[in-house]
């Protein structure tokens, strides 16, 4: 990376191909207007008694929702979202976005339920407002069906969704291979609409989007005071976390506008999620597979499994293949870490590892991440040096 001498003295590594995603200088922080473009702003300020400069790494669902939450909790901050991929090219854009939680073995159930409830309630109020269409959030009803009796007939999230009940015999007739089912109403949150809506909210509160690939979190020092790591699978490199691994998901997006209900096989392998502009058919759960190219054989298999559940899909058209790598981990990592190198210190809040449950948990975990960021910000503000956060 080229090193340049700035006119203000000192030097810093100037990232190549730097350009603000939003060319407008928003300059809207509580400390008056300032000329700020990318990382250069650091040279125009002293230590953070005024604005806490926060970098959010990652512009998927976690990065953007955390970037929205932070200004509501942290007084006097600036938020910059830095990522190599933005919507519609993130993993979050591939996901169907249906709110049916995934169970994390290493996260306590009461926490999962709290985060799911916070996310559901938050999205529910958007779904019932005039913003629903702009945010891509709406209600959808349907069925989760099982080929054999599940160990848990009533999951932990049953009272968070609406109208949860067992399917009747008459309803199960539609699925002759299945012996048990649950009927309920939940929410769908569409990545390609929701993410741009979140981006707008980030910008409206003064945040910046910077398209830039970060190879090492130290690149953000000393331009930023706190780093929020929402890089998903990128954390293998950026956080040295070997417990996060991809679970490859291939899906088909098809035109079948007559489908109004979701259908999910309890195994999580076969599902049909009707959306605003297409229906998502899935899927696969291939552990450790990094391949982002769609596989034709898999597409045929997905289509055939979904048609078996919903024969009218034979009339679906305009079939498109997509692949996403779920950032899977035994538990979601929501944790502060103080990076130290020589005399340099960099507070980091990790917020990643949601696997299949990103949409279901995102608002609850973003609020928690923002709380952790606030703790870091408070610690920065106090004059005594801190040995450990």
């Amino acid at each position: 990376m080229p090193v340049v001498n700035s006119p203000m003295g000192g030097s810093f590594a100037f990232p190549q191909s730097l350009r603000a995603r939003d060319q407008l200088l928003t300059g809207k922080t509580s400390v008056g207007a300032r000329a700020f473009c990318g990382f250069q702003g650091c040279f125009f300020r002293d230590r953070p008694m005024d604005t806490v400069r926060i970098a959010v790494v990652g512009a998927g669902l976690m990065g953007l929702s955390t970037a929205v939450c932070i200004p509501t909790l942290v007084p006097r901050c600036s938020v910059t979202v830095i990522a190599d991929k933005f919507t519609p090219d993130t993993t979050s854009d591939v996901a169907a976005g249906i709110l049916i939680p995934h169970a994390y073995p290493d996260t306590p159930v009461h926490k999962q339920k709290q985060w799911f409830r916070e996310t559901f309630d938050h999205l529910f109020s958007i779904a019932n407002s005039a913003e629903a269409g702009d945010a891509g959030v709406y209600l959808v009803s349907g069925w989760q069906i099982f080929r054999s009796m599940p160990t848990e007939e009533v999951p932990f999230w049953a009272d968070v969704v609406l109208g949860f009940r067992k399917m009747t015999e008459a309803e199960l007739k539609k699925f002759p291979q299945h012996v048990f089912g649950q009927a309920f109403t939940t929410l769908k949150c569409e990545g390609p609409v929701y993410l741009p809506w979140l981006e707008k909210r980030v910008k409206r509160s003064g945040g910046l989007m910077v398209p830039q690939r970060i190879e090492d979190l130290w690149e953000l020092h000393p331009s930023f005071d706190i780093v929020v790591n929402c890089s998903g699978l990128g954390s293998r490199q950026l956080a040295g976390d070997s417990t996060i691994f991809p679970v490859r998901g291939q899906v088909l997006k098809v035109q079948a506008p007559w489908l109004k209900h979701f259908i999910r096989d309890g195994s999580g392998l076969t599902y049909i999620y009707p959306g605003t502009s297409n229906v998502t058919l899935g899927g696969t759960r291939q552990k450790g597979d990094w391949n982002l190219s769609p596989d034709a054989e898999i597409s045929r298999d997905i289509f055939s499994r979904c048609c078996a559940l919903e024969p009218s899909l034979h009339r679906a058209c305009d079939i498109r293949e997509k692949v996403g790598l779920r950032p899977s981990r035994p538990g979601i990592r929501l944790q502060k870490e103080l990076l130290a190198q020589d005399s340099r210190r960099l507070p980091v809040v990790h917020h990643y590892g949601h696997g299949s449950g990103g949409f279901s948990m995102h608002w609850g975990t973003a609020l928690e991440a923002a709380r952790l960021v606030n703790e870091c910000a408070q610690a920065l503000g106090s004059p005594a040096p801190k040995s450990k956060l």
Partner: protein
Amino acid sequence: MRVVVIGAGVIGLSTALCIHDRYQPVLQSLDVRVYADRFTPLTNTDVAAGLWQPYLSNPSNPQETHWNQQTFDYLLSHLHSPNAADMGLALISGYNLFHEAVPDPSWKDIVLGFRKLTPRELDMFPDYSYGWFNTSLILEGKRYLQWLTERLTERGVKFSQRKVESLEEVARGGADVIINCTGVRAGELQPDPMLQPGRGQIIKVDAPWMKHFIVTHDPERGIYRSPYIIPGIREVTLGGIFQLGNWSEVNNIQDHKSIWEGCCRLEPTLKAEIVSECTGFRPVRPQVRLERERLRFGPSNTELIHNYGHGGYGLTIHWGCALEAAKLFGEVLEERKLLRMPPSHL
């Protein structure tokens, strides 16, 4: 044996199909024709939102409950085929909303998963305090008529666009049996003081995120006079107009406002693009007229089977009525000793 079906709405076309499929195998000479002045997309069926849902109160003729059930079961059996979308048929769930607690409807066990609304669900609709949730069917009038037309054409049934001025004209033209499916304008062929138009106006919008129907009820205003939102295959129908005795085919601006304001109040997400607006006439009658009549013009008898007056529930009841009309037709054939063997049951 020449059969003329007058009317090409859902009742005419489904009756024609039902009769053809049941009797053509046993009566080679069966010749079914459809006469109508209006075909899809200009019939009243084309205007209907297409939600399968009978009235809340029990019909005065208990047979109608049976015909409703037969229609639901028939449509449900077609859901599993790849043809469902071609027919304009899909499952749909949704909400019926009330200002106060009401008894369960007689059709609660016909639809799927019928239950009361929970308090959190009712929170979505602040003007209402009670309601139901159930899974029913959408049968889109326009798509279904196209599908029926294709099936009839395959079977060699002929269509003739003409304005029938009198039953006599059709009888003298050589019809042995006339099936009268003229809907709201049946009175033009034979006066019927019990038949009246129930004018409806609807707005179609593009709102593909809406996956549920929402039908509100106001007993003081009466059926269909309270806002309803019914998603179809591609568009969403907004309605809430029912005017007895009004024959105006023109879209009315007051009605437009009433529908739009009522539906937007009910569903705040409805910042949607208006695709079209149209008017239709429900053929309102205290009960469906489904019976035989014998006409005499000159020396010959012509059998007449009436099948009209289905109000706002034509799509809901159509197949049961078609089966009944076919049964009456069978009686005619037996009387004329035309049947060689009993007809197979559909």
